[in-house]
């Protein structure tokens, strides 16, 4: 047993850190937030150039064939800089499922483009009024040469930039399907919405026909299995992002409270301050180990349902506590958006509630334990 990342993985992590530190400075992030559309395309092409977008895509599809642990390391580094690029949506929600389940044509059409940085992907997992992504309310009705999709998908990440969105739907034959939808096609309304962390999201109003070739995995593809697969990657990806957000927020808080003097001494020498920072640190370590455990098991094809939920519980519950502590220890500075720490707070609370907050994960873990035992 070796519960640490390998030397090779360390290289990935270092490379990712170098790119994000070099291209997502505080000034740059601020600039994109103020002037841009929330998508830093320069950073995106740097990631592609460094081959980080293709890192976890199979070699046959133009990538380097690494796995989910490596993707987690990249996302952690992104979280550390709260960098405005759709890595999570494109890779965890789009590319990994296409690589796993896609037909040869689907893989050839989308994956090389992802590696090159030309393609943004996403998935529409939420539905209003349905907490359970496995029971979509969106419908898919068979037509002569395709599927008529109809439904409403709220808060789809990066939908306004995506070439394809993986849309989950209940078919008229009772099965579940996942469909590769072009959000720019007629019959799809993309309604950009504002999110707490100011990252691009959009609601999709769908009433359109996609061709039969756009069903993920072809006619035999098992939609339920696919949704499980996507959800697990999505959750672990969020955990990795949150780990980066929290890790960097704590470091910045440690530096800030050590540099700021009140009562003629550093804030950090008040034990009420030091202990809160230590609490934040103690909450971050469980986030790291549970995320690595879940990512590693998934990567090796081991049953991971509980591990994934446990990781997201810590990312939600621990993560929100950490960003609150860091925000609070910055005093008035935390409330001033000219100063960077507030972004960590906003990302932290956004990730907390995405795909279920802590209490929702606990409920799911409880159900699993009651059903399966442990």
């Amino acid at each position, binding site marked *: 047993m070796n519960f640490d990342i390998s030397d090779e993985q360390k290289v990935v992590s270092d490379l990712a850190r170098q790119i994000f530190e070099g291209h997502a400075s505080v000034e740059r992030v601020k600039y994109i937030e103020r002037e841009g559309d929330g998508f830093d395309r320069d950073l995106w092409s740097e990631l592609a150039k460094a081959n980080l977008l293709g890192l976890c895509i199979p070699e046959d599809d133009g990538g380097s064939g690494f796995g989910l642990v490596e993707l987690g390391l990249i996302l952690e580094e992104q979280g550390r800089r709260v960098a405005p690029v759709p890595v999570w949506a494109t890779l965890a929600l789009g590319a990994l499922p296409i690589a796993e389940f896609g037909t040869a044509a689907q893989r050839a059409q989308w994956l090389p483009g992802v590696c090159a940085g030309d393609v943004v992907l996403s998935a529409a997992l939420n539905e209003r009024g349905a907490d359970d992504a496995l029971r979509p309310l969106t419908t898919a009705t068979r037509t002569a040469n395709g599927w008529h999709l109809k439904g409403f998908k709220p808060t789809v990440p990066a939908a306004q930039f995506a070439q394809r969105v993986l849309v989950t739907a209940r078919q008229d034959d009772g099965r579940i399907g996942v469909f590769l939808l072009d959000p720019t096609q007629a019959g799809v309304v993309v309604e950009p919405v504002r999110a707490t*962390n100011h990252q691009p999201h959009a609601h999709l109003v769908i009433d359109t026909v996609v061709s039969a070739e756009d069903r993920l995995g072809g006619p035999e593809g098992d939609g339920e299995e696919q949704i499980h697969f996507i959800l697990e990657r999505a959750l672990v990806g969020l955990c990795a992002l949150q780990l980066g957000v929290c890790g960097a927020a704590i470091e910045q808080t440690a530096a800030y409270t050590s540099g700021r003097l009140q009562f003629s001494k550093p804030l950090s020498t008040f034990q009420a301050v030091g202990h809160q920072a230590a609490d934040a640190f103690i909450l971050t370590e469980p986030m790291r180990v549970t995320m690595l455990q879940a990512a590693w098991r998934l990567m090796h094809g081991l049953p991971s349902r509980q591990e994934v939920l446990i990781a997201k519980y810590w990312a939600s519950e621990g993560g929100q506590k950490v960003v609150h502590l860091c925000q609070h220890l910055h005093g008035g500075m935390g409330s001033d958006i000219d100063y960077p720490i507030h972004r960590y707070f906003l990302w932290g609370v956004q990730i907390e509630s995405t795909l279920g907050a802590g209490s929702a994960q606990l409920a799911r873990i409880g159900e699993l334990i009651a059903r399966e035992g442990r």
Partner: protein
Amino acid sequence: MDIGDSVEEAAFRAEARAWLEQHAPHRDPTKRHKQSSTDTEQDVHAQACRDWQRVLYDGGWAGLTWPKRFGGRGGTPWQAAIFGEEQSKFDVATGAFAVAHGMVAPTLMMHGTDEQRGYLDAMLRGDEVWCQLFSEPEAGSDLANIGTRAVLDGGEWIINGQKVWTSGAQHSEFAILLARTDPDAPKHAGITYFILDMNSPGIEVRPLRQITGVAHFNEVFLTDVRIPVANVVGEVNAGWKIAHTTLSNERALIGGGNTAWSIQELIEMARHYGRTNDPVVRQGIAKAHSRAAVLQYMGYRLRTSISRGEMPGVVASTMKLFYARHWAQTTGLALTIQGANGALWGDSALDDGLWQQTFLGQYAVRLGGGTDEIQGNVIGERALGLPREPAADRDLPWRETRGSTR
């Protein structure tokens, strides 16, 4: 002890209610106010506060607990509480006067000259809004470390320095200001408390945008600003004691203030999202309800002690700390109830993102008026009699402590 309405109190409530019915529009209890986020909306809000304050004044309801000789109604803290409860059912606001009525007025009544008490009437009439120029970049929790300088020049003080996090400075006619008048005295002994006319030359107000999306606090730069000697409150160099009066009233104001929401609104929201059967939501709302009850009862105790003429002390610190936690926990619950929609923002979210704004606004409550930790220190020292944390800089001349201060 008696904590229901007495016969007189019930009569007072009926009278207040009848008057409000005639003079104020009703508030839809299920709909919350959109918070003013743009500059124009904030101007409109400030003006609405002024207008309503004028109506209160003309109707004889302004300054409910103020003594009659200061233009008030001479009522009891209980009557103020009752009036506040009734008023909250109507679509009116008084927020712009929080500093003036809640902090400046009690300070001037206790320490001001007769001439300075002349300011009370204009703030009661709704003509003059006040702000608090206390915090500085290097003086937050360590407020006594302020470095803004005041130097006497004939009949005037000349002020130079910078203040920060000043709420509402852009709408204010007047400010209370702390400045250093004796840098060679220990830090608490060289501070003077001033009244400042915000229209004086040399004042520059620069808005800072807050995490809530609202630009309601500011940096204020003071360059050769002149203040007449008559505007010193209390004695020169004895401003710290006067600031104490203001700060303890600020705690009572925050801790005893009403929350911006009602438990009923949480219940309505849980219904809206079909989550009233979720045990996490049910227990969360029940806990919030029980905390609100605690705050209400503590408020009664606070008012009882004020009505005996006591300064709001440990009770106010306790309430402020409890209230800050209540605010944080309850607005967090509100976002939990919203589920995935909780992560939306602004006009994409329920009620134009008001709950998100209130959630982020918890830091104003947890930091303003002395942070959670400072309240904790106060409670440790005053309620439990724990020794004060040793501080090396306390008795040194302020000037000598400067080198080590960033």
